[in-house]
């Protein structure tokens, strides 16, 4: 077979994204020049996206162990024991670059990819959460991206049949040239039925299952490992198209095949496709694999070995079956009208041997591919940071028009209602959703048990920008606090770390600090990190996105009926504020919307206190002492109260008085960790007081629910706004841009 393949040279390697050093390393590891196909394998597997070249040394710092952990990082997703023989499997992934190039399909295939990560583990997906960041919604180009991304997520998730129950959408100009599309998926599996991406058992057959292979997304992984410039749109031919219907069939077929006992190991063909699976699976098992590419089901004619190995066609898996059980695999996939073709065998030698029509086109040690280079590149604190942090927001004049300031915050697109997006998502299929999108965390029951899961995602790029370490720790605190405010005990965490180019020392410093912050918080809160994703090179023409770690947390409620939502339930309930007084306007939503600045210092963070506050909230919820619980986040205390007034089925006002140190704008809009407001029915007030005394946290009564207004007094000042005005601003703040 004479394929006219390009001659392998250093230049060619460079063109594929490899450095001169990396090319040398390939020569050394092979002891010869690679073939063109082999070079393709290395370029994909050693891309930043697959090899975590720049991040691996830092990721080691994350705490990944815990008594409930069944699977930490290193597999398609993490798994946590939730009792009664069940495990929750979850992970978050980014699809930023593809979504910028083609928002609808990019976001859709992002959902497809994370769903596969969950069901390759043997788990049935039960929930999707989407965490999105865009530029200024006043820009029509941004609106086009928002509309495309949301409808792509909606199409894929709805058609597949997994509810989207939570997430966030935030806006900042830094994301204009590079939106962030992070999607988390949560699934359930019997704890003793978790499948792994392994190629065990010499002689076991290797099956290709799912959609046919086309030339989609070749070098997608490499693309995700490069920054955009003005030519971004020329990279278009790599766009992949999603097929949620086939994905649904693949889900059912995979779970059914797993139930037969014929499946030894399985991995989805995501980034770097077949190349990735055929090297990573045997590498994990200390085996090798031989594959015959001409057996691969193909959608297009004349595909080369290189293309077949690197294609990122969607809805495909590589499955290692038990020898002798081939018939079971074929039967199940035939029932679901999917291809299941034997393409190879697990072998003893730890090589990946690739043949095409019988001719060997690649022979590479699997470890050489799977253990890519690791770098410890220099980090440096950005020069501008000290100055930005030295800025004191209190040197700005206080607002004279407090009601207007509050209404403006409620209508800022980041804080405003995201109903426009969520109503496009099926939120209930599976009939497990006890708390729909719109509260601090979504709550899903676990059928067949008394338990429920609470899930939330969080991240605040502005806070991380001015203080990566504390900002990242605060993201962990906020996501876990959200889960606690629903009544769930946080049991596991996944993260998606969205940064600019790691080749810039300032960016890598932000990244390193972020990891430290996440690690500190997770250790203090005893929440293990069981999986995640790093997305570097989020920049366009040298402008990086805000450093944005997004954190996804899963919590367990022992009693599904004992959960809480964030909105006030009736008039006459007492309102309490739990947590410290320390807040700051540094990095706050107020400072940004009112003054257009991202500067100042973050409020102090006491992780021990954070933990006690969360525990106190959970205890109060499970004892039935509170009627609402809401975490104080963007917009500070005033916005938190306003949200509790208007985000529920009925509008209920509140009158509160807060005696706290500091200027009124600081008290109202200052942001800080470890703070929660709750409402308590009068007859439970004594019980609540007793519970708080035991919790050893600062707290106090601040007011009572009722009326048509939100009134907040502090010192001699007061702000009073009608709920209708608050509600209108909140409901239209985002949606008016999308109409």
């Amino acid at each position, binding site marked *: 077979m004479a394929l006219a393949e390009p001659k392998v040279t250093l230049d060619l390697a460079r063109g594929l994204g490899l450095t001169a050093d990396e090319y040398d390393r390939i020569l050394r590891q092979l002891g010869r020049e690679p073939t063109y196909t082999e070079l393709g394998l290395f370029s994909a597997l050693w891309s930043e996206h697959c090899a975590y070249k720049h991040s691996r040394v830092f990721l080691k710092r994350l705490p990944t162990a815990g008594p409930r952990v069944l699977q930490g990082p290193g597999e398609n997703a993490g798994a946590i024991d939730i009792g009664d023989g069940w495990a929750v499997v979850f992970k978050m992934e980014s699809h930023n670059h593809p979504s910028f190039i083609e928002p609808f399909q990019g976001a859709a295939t992002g959902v497809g990819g994370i769903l596969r990560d969950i069901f390759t583990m043997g788990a049935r997906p039960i929930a999707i959460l989407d965490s999105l960041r865009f530029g200024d919604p006043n820009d029509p180009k941004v609106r086009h991206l928002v509309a495309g991304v949301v409808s792509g997520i909606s199409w894929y998730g709805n*058609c597949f049949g997994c509810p989207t129950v939570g997430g966030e959408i935030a806006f900042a100009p830094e994301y204009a040239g590079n939106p962030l599309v992070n999607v988390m998926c949560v699934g359930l599996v019997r704890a003793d039925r978790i499948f792994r991406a392994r190629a065990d058992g010499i002689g076991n057959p290797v099956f290709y299952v799912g959609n046919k292979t086309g030339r989609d997304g070749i070098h997608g992984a490499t693309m995700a490992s490069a920054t955009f410039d003005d030519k971004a749109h020329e990279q278009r031919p790599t766009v992949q198209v999603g*097929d*949620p*219907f086939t994905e649904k069939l693949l889900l059912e077929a995979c779970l059914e095949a797993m139930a037969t006992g014929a499946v030894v190991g399985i991995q989805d063909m995501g980034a770097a496709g077949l190349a990735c699976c055929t090297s990573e699976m045997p590498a994990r098992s200390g085996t090798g694999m031989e594959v015959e590419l001409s057996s691969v089901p193909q959608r297009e004619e004349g595909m080369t070995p290189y293309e077949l190995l690197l294609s990122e066609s969607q809805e495909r898996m590589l499955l290692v079956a038990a020898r002798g059980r081939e018939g079971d695999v074929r039967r199940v996939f035939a029932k679901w009208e999917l291809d299941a073709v034997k393409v190879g065998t697990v072998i003893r030698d730890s090589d990946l041997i690739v043949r095409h029509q019988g001719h060997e086109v690649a022979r590479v040690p699997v470890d050489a591919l799977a253990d890519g280079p690791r770098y410890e590149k220099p980090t440096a604190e950005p020069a501008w940071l000290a100055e930005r942090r030295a800025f004191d927001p209190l040197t700005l004049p206080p607002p004279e028009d407090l009601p207007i300031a509050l209404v403006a915050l409620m209508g800022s697109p980041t804080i405003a209602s995201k109903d426009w997006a969520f109503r496009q998502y099926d939120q*209930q299929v599976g009939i497990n959703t006890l708390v729909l999108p719109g509260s601090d965390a979504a709550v899903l029951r676990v059928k067949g048990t008394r338990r429920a899961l609470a899930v939330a995602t969080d991240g605040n790029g502005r806070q991380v920008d001015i203080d990566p370490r504390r900002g990242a720790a605060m993201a962990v605190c906020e996501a876990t606090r959200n889960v606690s405010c629903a009544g769930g005990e946080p049991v596991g965490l996944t993260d998606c770390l969205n940064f600019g180019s790691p080749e810039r020392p300032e960016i890598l410093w932000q990244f390193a600090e972020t990891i430290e912050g996440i690690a500190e918080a997770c250790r203090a809160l005893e929440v293990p990190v069981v999986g995640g994703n790093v997305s570097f090179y989020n920049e366009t023409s040298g402008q990086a996105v805000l450093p944005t770690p997004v954190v996804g947390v899963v919590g367990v409620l022992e009693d599904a009926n004992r959960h809480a939502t964030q909105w006030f339930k009736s008039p006459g309930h007492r309102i309490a504020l739990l947590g410290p007084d320390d807040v700051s306007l540094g990095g706050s939503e107020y400072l940004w919307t009112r003054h257009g600045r991202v500067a100042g210092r973050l409020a102090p963070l006491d992780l021990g206190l954070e933990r006690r506050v969360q525990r106190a909230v959970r205890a109060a919820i499970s004892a039935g002492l509170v009627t609402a619980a809401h975490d104080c986040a963007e917009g500070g205390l005033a916005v938190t109260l306003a949200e509790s007034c208007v985000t529920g089925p009925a509008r209920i006002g509140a009158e509160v008085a807060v005696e706290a140190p500091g200027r009124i704008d600081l008290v109202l809009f200052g942001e800080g960790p470890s703070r929660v407001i709750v409402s308590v029915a009068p007859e439970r007030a004594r019980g609540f007081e007793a519970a708080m005394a035991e919790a050893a946290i600062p707290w106090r009564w601040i007011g009572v629910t009722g009326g048509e207004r939100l009134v907040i007094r502090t010192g001699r000042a007061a702000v009073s706004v009608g709920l209708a005005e608050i509600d209108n601003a909140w409901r239209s703040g985002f949606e008016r841009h999308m109409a």
Partner: protein
Amino acid sequence: MKFGVVVFPGTWSDCDFHHVVSEVLHQPVKYVWHRERDLGDVDCVILPGGFSYGDYLRAGAVAGRSPVVEAIRDFAAKGGLVLGSCNGFQILCEAGLLPGALLRNECLQYRCQSTHLVVDNVDTPFTRGLRPGQVLTMPISHGEGKYQVDAPALAQLREHHQIVFRYATAEGAVTRAANPNGSLENIAGIVNEAGNVLGMMPHPERAAEAVVGGTDGLLLFQSLLGSLVEDGTFLKR
């Protein structure tokens, strides 16, 4: 009462209906695979929601021409009870078991939200436990739920009291604002002339337990349960 829940490639409310029938109503229920030509021993067939065959051509189009639908056609002709919800409604229309068709929502977006339905016709096995004008709360979740039928067919629907549910306000007023998808006359559900085949866009199975979305959907099942008579016929009232 024995239920059968039909499963097409791409169906996703099958498990939810199964759960409600077995865990909430405690009735026997089985899945019916789309290739089957014989429904077996069932009293009521449910066509659940989902995206059968991806709904890639038109919602319900491919499923509407599958072997199991032919079996359902015979079953319905003999008076068997058929409930199609969401994609099931779309399939029944595509199969010609119900008149009309479901078009893309007027807003051109998918809609998942709670809706109120006013009950127009209580003389069906599915609604015999309800009051005329009663308002039910049930969620919808679809991208193609705008009911469409031509004027003569609409006149027929009216004449035979085939319109069962209409989107309404919480007070039961049939208004434009209460119409989530632009459906003709706010139609949310219809029956065939004989009254034994019901198609509706809302999801009764998502409103069958107090903890998840209320219990108004259960009223339909409870109407059904009492409707069966020994000789195999059913009660309308």
